[in-house]
Structure formats: structure tokens, C-alpha cells
């Protein structure tokens, strides 16, 4: 007795399974080496030939050999065993090899379940809106194959399976949404995984002009920001990420100040609240407008004395994160400790002698520090300084070479040189790395800031507080070199007063619309974390619930919805006609009197009732007559006779009970 339905021999099932597996593998294409897909195609093709052309399944030794071979190739391709991409590649290879030994229903089911798992692995690489749509479609397709594998005719009448699968999906969606909203979120991952497969993006902890130039090419999104007070006012602002406080003669590095130094923000003024959705960068910095109030609470972050926010404990922004901040644009940082002063005045002992000398001379000519700063800026404006993103690196004496000879560069050069000039004369100054400007998406009402908007500017300690100076914005506008690409022009346009204006034709409009849908997607689906959940629960009136209280609510709500759906889905008891039910009750009533009732007509039951229930004998006889009239002379009976008969019948039945 072998009661299994071997799906692999049913029409269409194997081919559909192969096609769906191929479809699920497509999103993995950019992440995995191509030979893996070759293996899949070969195994799939072979297995299909086994079905159609009668080729034999490979022997055990051959399968073992293939297994060892692909594992070896996998290691050779990646050079390591750790990492998500290796794991995903391994899974795909196992799926392919499984095809070669699939012969029973058990194997078919295993492969379909692996498909579900493969769908999940694609999310590790991308979580855009397209991936959401892809999720739905691939689950629909995989479930269709699963249903087809249980049918006796396989996928011959495939639309039946498609329809049932779609129905299941639609019915599951509301429940899924409920679970998604209420399922408790952990504040941080269960364990930290440094994934070697992902590269760092964005500003790094050491700045050299070449690095920043590279960033200017990238149109990848760094972060999106919106504000309840109006996102338009967020445009053309400076977003600080980190401070480059140390110069080694060639590169500017992130400062390493003691962590106990306080952050003192005075004369705050109006506050600006905004939400940032930051992309994964594998770096620890978060972004903020000058001057932030505090670090976001739900992240393990710290606000340094420099006004930058960073994740602590070697954590990185490995996934997209969402956080809210409050800043005071009119505030001032008014404290400079001795340690900070020393740090922000430090220059290497040797190097760039001409710049130091020139700076000191210029300072002596000026009455004050502030005047000196102005003089420097005038120098940039009047002298032939050019803005150009394509610059060959200067070999040695980078400041001298830039300031006196080359005079061509972009923000990194200008900021670096400017800071050098200031430190040479004893004015504490630092280079700040971050982003400037951004693209306002008026359809979605938020700001998009890309990597190409990375910028470096200067902060100088003047008049007892830190002030921002952006030397790049003092370049004469006519001296922007014209071989800039559109992107570079945009970037140049974002810097200082060279604001350009995007022409909104239909193409870019639809791009904006799509990006706003994407943004909503990010904010509400992908950005839904502990913070969002807490807010949503507040709105629903379920604020401040601990897990102990939330979980029963979740379970009850879920079970309730499930029960409702179940009640809707399951067929009700067959509706019995009311008259028939009355007869059934009468039969029950007469059972004690008569052992077995075999009747040819139900009307006889009424006569029996008259016989055995003598209290209402007359009434029963009348009812009998009426019933006969209803039954056999429907043309001559008034239309409400049926209702009367029914009422009378019920009445008589009730009476007996009393």
C-alpha cells in the first residue's frame, strides 16, 4: 500500500518548479558568481531530460564527487566560508544538486520548501519596493506549484492551482499585516554579524581628496530626511557626519578626543525636528543638522563633544535605520577645553613651510582673528582659484602645492588648506565632513541626499564659539570648470551659492513619484522597528505596554481574526426548510408513541399527531387540511397560506411543551 502522489511524474510540475526556481534566483544574480547559475541550469536541464528523454539519474559516487567539487569551487570563488553571500551561494548549489536526486514526492516537497527559503535570502541583498512586489509574486508562484504537487492531475489545469494560491494569499494578507504591526521587535539584533561581503560606503574616517572625488561620482542615496515642520526648509543645509581633527601632512583623520568631554549647547533658540532614514554604510556615523540636542535613544549611539553622533561598541550602520533628531540651528557650542584646543591647533612639525609663513604674515597684517578669516576668504575669491572635481593628487606639500600653484580643487582641498592656514596662526579649527544640500522631492515631501553631495567644510573657534565657514562657496562662480558631468554640476550646484534648478519634465517627475513611493515603503514597511511600533501603539492607545501585556493582545487579536476568517470560509450547516424542520420535530415528539414511523407522505404525520396528541386534536386535523391544500392545490390557495401553516405548526409544537 503506497499512498503517495509522486508529483515529479505529474504533468507540468517539474517544469514549473524549475522555472520558478530560476525566477527566484534572478535577484541573486548580482551577488553571486555566474558559475553557480551555470550549475543550476545544468542540473535543471539534466533532471528535465531524465523526465522527458529517460536519461538515468546519476549514481551516488558521481553525486558525491559533484558535491565536493562545488564546495571547492565555492571556496575558491569567495576565498572564505563566512558571509551571507557564501551562505546564499551554498544554498543555491544544494538546491541544484538536489534536483539530480529528486525522485519521490518527498524530494519535490523539500525543493519547494527550499524555494521559500531562497526567497528570503534575496532580502539580505536588497529590500527595495521591487523586492516587496517580487516577494508576493514568487510566494504566489511557489504556492501554486505546491498545490499542483498535491493534485492528481498535476498542473494540467494550472489556472485552478493559480486561483487557489492567489485566494490563500489574499486571505492571508490582512492577518499578515496584523502580525507585522503587533509582533514585538527587539531593540537590537540577537547577535552582531560583521558581514565581510558588504563594502563600506560613504565618508570614511580618513579624508583625502581622492576619496571625496570618488564619492562625487556616486548617485547612491546616503539618506532621506523629512520634517513635520515642513521638509522644504531642510534644503540647502549642512549635515554633519564626522569631524576630521587630525592632519598628518597628507590626510585628515577623524579626531580621537577623550569621551568624557562634555557637549555644551547654549542659546538654543527655535528647535527643528526631523526624521532621517539612513542607508546602510557599514560605518558608525549618524547624521545631524547643526546643532543636535541629543543622540537617538533607541540606538546605541552617543553625541560627542564635537556635535557628531556615532554608534558605540563597534557597531555599524549595517542596515537601513530610522531615527528622529532635534536640532537648534541658532544654537552655539561655547565650550572649548584645553584638550580640545590642543587637538585643534595641532599640525605636523614639518611640511608646507611656505603656507605657514604666508599665513603668519597675513595674520600680522590683520587686526583680529575674524578679520584674518575674512582676508583668507577674500584671497580665495580674488585669486584664480578654480573648482574642479577631476584633480590629480599632489605628491608632497599638499597645502603649498594647492594654495600657491595648482589652485584647482574641490571642497576637500579648500577645507583642508583653510584649516591649515587657521591652525598655523593659532586659531583652533577643524574640518567637518558631511553632506550639503540634497534633492527635494515635492511629491513625497522629503529630501533625498546622495553620496555625491558629500562635502567638507571648516569650523573655526571665533568669538568664543564654533562657527561654520565654507571656503568652497567663496570661489568665484565663473571659475567653475565646465567639464563637469551633469551629476558633478548638480553637486557643484549644491555647494554654496551655485544653486541650480532641476527641470521637472515628465521623466524626472515619474522618477520622483517612484522615489516617494519607495520612501513611504522604506519608512513604513522597512523602517518599522521598535521606535515606530511604539509610536503606532501610542496612537492606538496601547502605549507603554511591556511584552507581557502585548503578547496576549497579539495572540488574542490574531486568533480572533483567524476565527472570523475560518467562520467565513467553512460551509454552514445545510439550511433546512422551516417546514421540514417542523416535521422533524414532530417526528421526535411522536417517537415515544410509535416505534418506527415509515410514512409515504409527511401529511400522515399530522394525522398521527392528531391521534396521539389528543389535546389539540382538532387543531392538528385542521392543520392537516391546510397542509394538503398548500401542497396539492397551490393555485387555489391564498399566498399567505404557507406562512399561516408554518406559524400554526410552530404554535402547536410549542404548546405541547407546556
Amino acid at each position, binding site marked *: 500500500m503506497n*499512498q503517495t502522489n509522486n508529483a515529479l511524474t505529474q504533468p507540468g510540475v517539474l517544469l514549473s518548479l524549475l522555472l520558478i526556481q530560476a525566477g527566484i534566483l534572478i535577484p541573486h544574480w548580482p551577488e553571486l558568481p555566474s558559475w553557480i547559475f551555470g550549475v543550476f541550469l545544468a542540473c535543471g536541464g539534466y533532471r528535465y531530460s531524465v523526465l522527458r528523454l529517460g536519461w538515468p539519474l546519476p549514481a551516488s559516487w558521481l553525486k558525491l564527487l559533484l558535491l565536493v567539487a562545488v564546495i571547492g569551487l565555492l571556496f575558491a570563488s569567495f576565498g572564505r566560508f563566512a558571509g551571507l553571500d557564501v551562505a546564499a551561494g551554498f544554498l543555491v548549489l544544494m538546491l541544484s544538486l538536489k534536483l539530480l536526486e529528486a525522485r519521490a514526492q518527498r524530494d519535490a516537497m*523539500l525543493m519547494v*520548501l527550499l524555494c*521559500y527559503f531562497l526567497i*528570503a535570502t534575496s532580502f539580505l541583498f536588497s529590500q527595495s519596493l521591487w523586492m516587496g512586489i517580487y516577494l508576493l509574486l514568487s510566494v504566489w508562484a511557489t504556492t501554486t506549484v505546491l498545490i499542483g504537487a*498535491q*493534485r492528481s492531475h498535476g498542473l494540467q489545469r494550472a489556472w485552478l492551482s493559480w486561483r487557489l494560491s492567489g485566494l490563500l494569499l489574499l486571505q492571508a494578507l490582512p*492577518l499578515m499585516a496584523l502580525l*507585522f504591526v503587533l509582533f514585538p521587535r527587539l531593540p537590537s539584533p540577537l547577535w552582531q554579524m560583521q558581514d565581510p561581503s558588504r563594502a563600506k560606503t560613504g565618508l570614511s574616517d580618513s579624508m583625502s581628496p581622492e576619496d571625496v572625488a570618488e564619492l562625487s561620482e556616486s548617485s547612491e542615496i546616503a539618506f532621506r530626511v523629512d520634517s513635520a515642520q515642513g521638509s522644504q526648509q531642510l534644503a540647502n543645509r549642512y549635515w554633519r557626519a564626522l569631524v576630521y581633527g587630525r592632519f598628518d601632512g597628507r590626510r585628515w583623520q577623524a579626531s580621537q578626543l577623550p569621551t568624557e568631554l562634555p557637549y555644551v549647547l547654549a542659546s538654543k533658540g527655535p528647535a527643528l525636528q526631523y526624521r532621517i532614514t539612513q542607508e546602510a554604510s557599514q560605518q558608525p556615523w549618524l547624521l545631524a543638522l547643526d546643532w543636535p540636542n541629543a543622540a537617538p535613544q533607541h540606538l546605541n549611539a552617543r553625541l560627542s563633544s564635537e556635535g557628531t553622533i556615532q554608534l558605540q561598541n563597534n557597531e555599524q550602520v549595517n542596515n537601513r535605520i530610522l531615527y528622529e533628531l532635534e536640532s537648534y540651528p541658532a544654537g552655539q557650542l561655547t565650550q572649548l577645553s584645553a584638550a580640545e584646543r590642543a587637538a585643534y591647533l595641532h599640525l605636523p612639525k614639518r611640511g608646507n613651510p611656505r603656507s605657514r609663513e604666508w599665513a603668519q604674515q597675513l595674520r600680522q597684517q590683520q587686526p583680529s582673528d575674524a578679520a584674518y578669516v575674512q582676508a583668507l576668504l577674500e584671497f580665495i575669491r580674488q585669486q584664480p582659484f578654480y573648482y574642479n572635481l577631476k584633480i590629480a593628487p599632489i605628491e608632497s606639500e599638499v597645502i603649498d602645492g594647492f594654495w600657491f600653484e595648482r589652485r584647482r580643487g574641490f571642497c576637500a582641498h579648500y577645507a583642508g588648506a583653510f584649516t591649515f592656514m587657521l591652525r598655523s596662526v593659532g586659531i583652533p579649527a577643524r574640518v567637518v565632513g558631511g553632506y550639503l544640500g540634497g534633492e527635494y522631492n515635492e511629491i513625497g515631501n522629503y529630501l533625498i541626499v546622495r553620496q555625491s553631495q558629500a562635502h567638507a567644510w571648516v569650523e573655526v573657534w571665533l568669538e568664543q564659539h564654533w562657527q561654520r565657514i565654507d571656503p568652497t562657496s567663496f570661489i568665484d562662480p565663473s571659475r567653475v570648470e565646465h567639464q563637469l558631468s551633469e551629476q558633478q554640476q548638480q553637486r557643484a550646484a549644491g555647494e554654496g551659492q551655485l544653486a541650480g534648478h532641476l527641470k521637472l519634465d515628465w521623466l524626472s517627475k515619474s522618477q520622483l513619484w517612484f522615489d516617494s513611493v519607495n520612501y513611504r515603503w522604506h519608512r513604513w*514597511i522597512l523602517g518599522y522597528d521598535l521606535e515606530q511600533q511604539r509610536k503606532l501603539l501610542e496612537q492606538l492607545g496601547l502605549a507603554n505596554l511591556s511584552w507581557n501585556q502585548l503578547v496576549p493582545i497579539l495572540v488574542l487579536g490574531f486568533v480572533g481574526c483567524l476565527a472570523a476568517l475560518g467562520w467565513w470560509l467553512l460551509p454552514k450547516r445545510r439550511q433546512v426548510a422551516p417546514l421540514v424542520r417542523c416535521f422533524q420535530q414532530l417526528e421526535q415528539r411522536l417517537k415515544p408513541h410509535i416505534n418506527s414511523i415509515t410514512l409515504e407522505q409527511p401529511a400522515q404525520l399530522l394525522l398521527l399527531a392528531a391521534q396521539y396528541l389528543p389535546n389539540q386534536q382538532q387543531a392538528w386535523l385542521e392543520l392537516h387540511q391546510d397542509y394538503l391544500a398548500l401542497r396539492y392545490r397551490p393555485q387555489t390557495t391564498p399566498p399567505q397560506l404557507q406562512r399561516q401553516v408554518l406559524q400554526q405548526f410552530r404554535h402547536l409544537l410549542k404548546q405541547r411543551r407546556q
Partner: protein
Amino acid sequence: MNLFERLSLRIASHRQPKPVEGWLRIGHRQLYIWLTPAGGLFIAVQLAILLGGINYQSNLAYLLCFLLGCMFLLSLFHSYRNLLQLELTLGHIQPVFAGEPVVLPLLLRSEHPVWSLWVDEQTDLVDIQANQNQVLRLVKLGQKRGYYQIDSLKLHSVFPLGLMRVWSWQRPSSRALIYPKPEDPGYLPSASFNSSDHESELSRAGGDPDSLRPYQLGDSPQRWHWPSYARHGQLVTREGNQLAGEPWLLSLNNLTHEPLERALSILCFWLLEAEQRGLAYGLQLDGTELALAQGHEHLHHCLAALALYETSR
């Protein structure tokens, strides 16, 4: 059968110890449901996806896990609904002799289509169209004489996702008779068996010439008078209830030297032999007497009497 199926069989037998006449309807209380091994693996995959979602903070993984989970739970209802309100009964069953396979025609009908159903030990899936009777032929071995009582039939299905199995135990009533297995004792019933008030001499010679008539189309070959044909070359048939030989009156009392079952088997064999020879025969059991007659119906009456003869003497 796994643990759950055994348990459910006990519960079902407890609720319905005897077979039920007429159409049986699978209702809510008769359906049981549990995971298949594939279902267990499915849950493991879901948990793995959930863990991945928690750890990599991937909300899409959460969505996938919940979607799969909800679909799984909803398929529970679909599976249930598949078998609910399915009606079955056993049709007319041809009697057979003990030891021969009994063919039980199982009629199935349902108001909604039923997909991928397994009935009892059949190896093929059954799909039932809505409002159409479907007949399945179950073949069982009939061992004992008497009424054949069917064991509980298991109807089960893993539709739609193959992750859960829904099953029901049903016991339709069958009034199928199993006749005793005929055994050849090696001897025929002796003349003393015959009842005294029968004209045996008439039958011996081969027929009364007065009762012959010309052959008509449709006359049974048993009634053709061969001697006439051999003599004259013309086919004639014997008329009326002229019997070909001595009628046999078979009685259990004449077989007291045999054990009961063997006696019944011998009687069965003689009945068949008598019918084949065209003899009249009658049967006498304790309390039951079947008068001399011939024909299929009479044969079945006699065999039925044999089959239903009480086991206690």
C-alpha cells in the same frame, strides 16, 4: 497509522460502534487534522526566516514569515472544507463465496468539488465533481460466511498544500452476503435424501414424451431433448416443469457426521451442482425449509440461508 490516526480511530469507533445505514455525511465531529512531515519542515523554514529577520532586522523577512504562517493556518480551513459534507454509501454488493474478493462499490457525492482524496487503501487520488455521484470499487477479501461487515474506512487528503492531513473514519453498512466456500465431498446426495412424495421414476428415463414440443427460439439448452434429436434430427424441447432428474432435497440433518462449516460447504457445493444439472432442489435447515424449485433466485435464497445459518447448532 501514526499515533494520531490510531487515537482518532478509537474515538470514532467509540462514537459510532456500528456501521451506519444509508448515506453517511462527514461532519465537523468526524474530521481530524494534523501536520505531515512536510508541514513540520515548513514550520522549521518559517522559524529560520523569522530568526534571520530578527537578526538582520529585515522587515521583509518578517513579512515573508508571517505571510507563510498565515497561509499555512488558512490552508487548515481549506483542507477541512475539502472533506466536509462529503457523503458516502455502499451500493449493491454482489454476494461471493468465502475466500473470494468482495467488490464494494462505494458511492461518493458532494455539493462542492472534493480534490485529491484518498479512500481506504486505494493507490490513486480521487477527485469528485460537484453534485455528481462517483463510484469507487473497493476490493476486500471476504473470509467468513455471513454478512460482510466492513471495517472503518479512512478517507484522507493533504490538499491543498500538502502540509496538513485531514482524515475521517467512516463505516457504511453493507448487507453483503458471503456464502460458504463450496467443498466437494466426493459423493452425491443419496436417493434417501429425496422426499417420498415425489415422482422420481418419471424423471429417470429422461422425460415424458407427452410433454415434448417443437423447439422455439429461446428455449434453454437444458430443456432440449437430446434423444429425439439423435433419432429424428429435429430439436425438441421438454415442456413445463418437467424435471431432468431426481430432485434433491438437501438437509443439514443428513450431514451430522461432518463439522458444521464443512457440512455447510458441502451443501453449498451440492446446491451449485444441482443447479448446474438442472435438477430441482430444496433445502432443509433447522427451522428453515426451502421448497423444491429451480433457477437463480432459488439458488440465491438457498445459499443465503446457508450463509446466514447460525453458528450455534
